[in-house]
């Protein structure tokens, strides 16, 4: 699957190149767009590999985005003052708490995971604009300060590609998070437990490991990752917009698709997310430059068409055998 993921990245860059000049700034832009998708995808892997299908990634991103902006706003009214990192932290906590509630519903109260996940999305979709209206009188927040860009010493001074290495911290975080997630899943005890929990929870249980605890941790981790992704999105834009599908606008679902394309391999999921990030760039450039007037909605369909095509060529994904099933210990 690693090869498939790398292949996808090549496809993404090729697409960029076909539709417009590939330069450092368009790659940098694609990376920026990858951040919320990528974090949702990596988080979703933790939860689904542990056996809890988290279809509410979209909702968790919305919670993350709203909480980040709301925290910035609230902090600016206190003596502490607006602090991007503090707001970032609050957003992660908020999203993790919602993920924990989702996990409690699925594990403790045996809710259907897909329905509970949809509930997370729908509740977030309703709550965030509602809360915005209460706080700010409209679904969109006023502008807040966001992350500023950091230049990576040395690399940023490279000719031609230098611009890629001037990035906001969340992009760096994502680039680290991909391999880190792979490492945790494939090289640590916890990763082994996550896999066993999703494949054959009874085997894990008889080996003396608490299956439910593993599932809780996996699901809360998906909340943490989505908190990062949502906050990164809002703190890049510097505003929360709650109209329509909110500013998250389906990125959680795209993230879900990304890890399926990557067949639950974090590296594959990262590259698949990057493909979608690249598609977003192409979409923008088509909309901006096209004289033929392709309808925006039609261009918006592009990612999903790509998903179909890619799934046909990449082959089928292998779901964890026990994902979606409740597990009850005998003793």
């Amino acid at each position, binding site marked *: 699957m690693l090869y498939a993921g790398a292949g996808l990245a090549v496809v993404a860059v090729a697409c960029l190149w076909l539709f417009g000049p590939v330069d450092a700034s368009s790659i940098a832009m694609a990376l920026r767009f990858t951040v919320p998708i990528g974090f949702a995808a990596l988080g979703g892997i933790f939860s689904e590999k542990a056996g809890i299908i988290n279809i509410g990634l979209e909702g968790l991103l919305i919670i993350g985005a709203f909480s980040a902006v709301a925290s910035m706003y609230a902090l600016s009214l206190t003596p502490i003052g607006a602090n991007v990192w503090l707001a970032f932290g609050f957003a992660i906590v908020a999203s993790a708490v919602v993920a924990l509630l989702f996990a409690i519903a699925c594990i403790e109260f045996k809710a259907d995971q897909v329905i509970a996940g949809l509930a997370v999305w729908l509740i977030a979709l309703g709550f965030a604009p509602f809360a915005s209206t209460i706080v700010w009188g409209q679904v969109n927040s006023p502008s807040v300060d966001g992350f500023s860009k950091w230049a990576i010493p040395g690399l940023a001074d490279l000719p031609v590609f230098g611009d890629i290495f001037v990035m906001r911290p969340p992009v760096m975080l994502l680039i680290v998070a991909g391999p880190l997630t792979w490492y945790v899943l494939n*090289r*640590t*005890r916890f990763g*082994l*437990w996550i*896999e*066993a929990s999703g*494949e*054959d929870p*009874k*085997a*894990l249980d*008889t*080996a*003396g*490991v608490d299956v439910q605890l593993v599932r809780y941790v996996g699901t809360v981790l998906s909340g943490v990752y989505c908190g990062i992704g949502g906050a990164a999105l809002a703190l890049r834009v510097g505003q929360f917009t709650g109209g329509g599908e909110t500013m998250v606008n389906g990125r959680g679902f795209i993230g879900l698709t990304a890890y399926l394309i990557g067949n639950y391999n974090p590296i594959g999921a990262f590259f698949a997310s990057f493909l979608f990030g690249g598609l977003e760039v192409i979409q923008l450039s088509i909309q901006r430059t096209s004289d033929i007037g392709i309808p925006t909605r039609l261009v918006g369909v592009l990612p999903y068409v790509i998903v179909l095509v890619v799934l046909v060529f990449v082959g089928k994904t292998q779901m964890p*055998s026990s994902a979606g099933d409740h597990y009850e210990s*005998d*003793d």
Partner: protein
Amino acid sequence: MSADDESADGARPGAAAVHMDGITKRFPGVVANDDIDFAVDRGTVHALVGENGAGKTTLMNVLYGLYEPTEGSVRIDGVRHEFDGPSDAMDAGIGMIHQHFMLVDTMTVAENVVLGNEPTKWGGFATDRAQAIEETKALAERYGFDLDPTAQIDEISIGEQQRVEILKALYRGAEILILDEPTAVLTPQEVEGLFDILEELIAEGKTIIFITHKLGEALEAADEISVLRDGKLVGTVSSAAASQEELARMMVGRDVLLDLEKPAAQRGDPILEVEEMSVEDDRGVTAVSDVDFAVHEGEVFGIAGVDGNGQSELIEAITGLHQPSSGTITFDGSQITTASRSDRIGMGMAYIAEDRQKRSLVMDYDLRRNGLLGCQRLPEFSNGFRIDWESTEEYVDDVIDEYDVRPPDPSADAHSFSGGNQQKFIVGREFERDPSLVVASQPTRGVDIGSIEFIHDRLLDLRADGTAILLVSSKLDEVRQLSDRLAVMHDGEIVAVVDPDAVSEEELGLLMAGEQPAGITAESARVRGGESA
């Protein structure tokens, strides 16, 4: 877990490895174990035999800490223990190998062995995979297991998977191993392999308890045999002094006819005729090639062979689950080669499938709804729009009554019944429809001895009534005893049709292996020639 203070420092020399004293386990409405005294000496193999529901598994679950006994005590090496759960039992050196393996298919042998007790490096930030593989390898070599620690579980055979389960228990320091029906899923060769392993383990000083209802295996592998019936210990005998008949009597509580009394066949017209039929399996490989045979009224036509030589595909083609690639099937005078499954049921074809949980029952349905499966279109149960639940209930009550399904509760879900009772129910459901042909595939697989006798009797009853019976079984003694004519399948072909009373087990074994023993060729040619004439 608590141990007596006086002996907390370790084993008492001379004490039995396991001593269960006066164990009673009550469930609401049921006494599963009734005042059982059970002791196993260190370094011996002890078989625990009994029919399904006799309380074997309950007793072992008490020993393994899954159940707390209502009364009685458990001593391990003379030290009294009260287990709160399997992990306490594991700490006391007890390992259990479940009938359904507790292995993660997508992980490697070594990963499964160390799961939950992984060796780590770098301060716990990584599993030490090299060490896991090394330890697994060392352990496997010590007990003479031929296993590749880096192979993935879904790539190795069932017999190898069982060895991984045993390694898992040994890795956790098990001194006492409980095996729950370890031979149920194994081929005869793998069973031999398992018995060799048990000897190896005994040589290393381990103690083994295995649950089985195959008396021959208990006699072969065990030093002592304890027999349970209806939750009570009937007795413990030394295997050197016991016979199959004696054990069967202890198990069932009456004399069991291990050799069937079978009246001569009243052979009538052919009911099922299969001509030049070939079947491809799901991967497009020819699984059955060019077979010809006929099953007549009032006879049992047996098919013997090592599993996987085309029997399943042959049966699926006859029952309508799989289309043959060429040839014809005639049933009761009409061509049914392409007829649908429901047409075949309507014409009077009964089917006892090999895998009862996948093919014959919906495990989450109660018996009432399971009793309707397959007959939902028959006029007795449906007017075409709605199901007649009243007549279904009557039918199911009849089946439960006639076929002694226990507990007799039509509203209980299928999965709450033991394998033997599930099978009795299926047999009843199929036989009570008054079929003209019964296709029975492994009808007694994983079924206790009393139920086996019962199912055999019913098959012979149908035969006496003039029903044609096609029987496939990998149990050689079963097909030999029941069949009037016996076909041997090898590599998709029927290599011989023989008179089961006229061939020896060795000759059948050779035929099943694809060799032609001297003397059989002529006879089988005669039987085949006689049939096509």
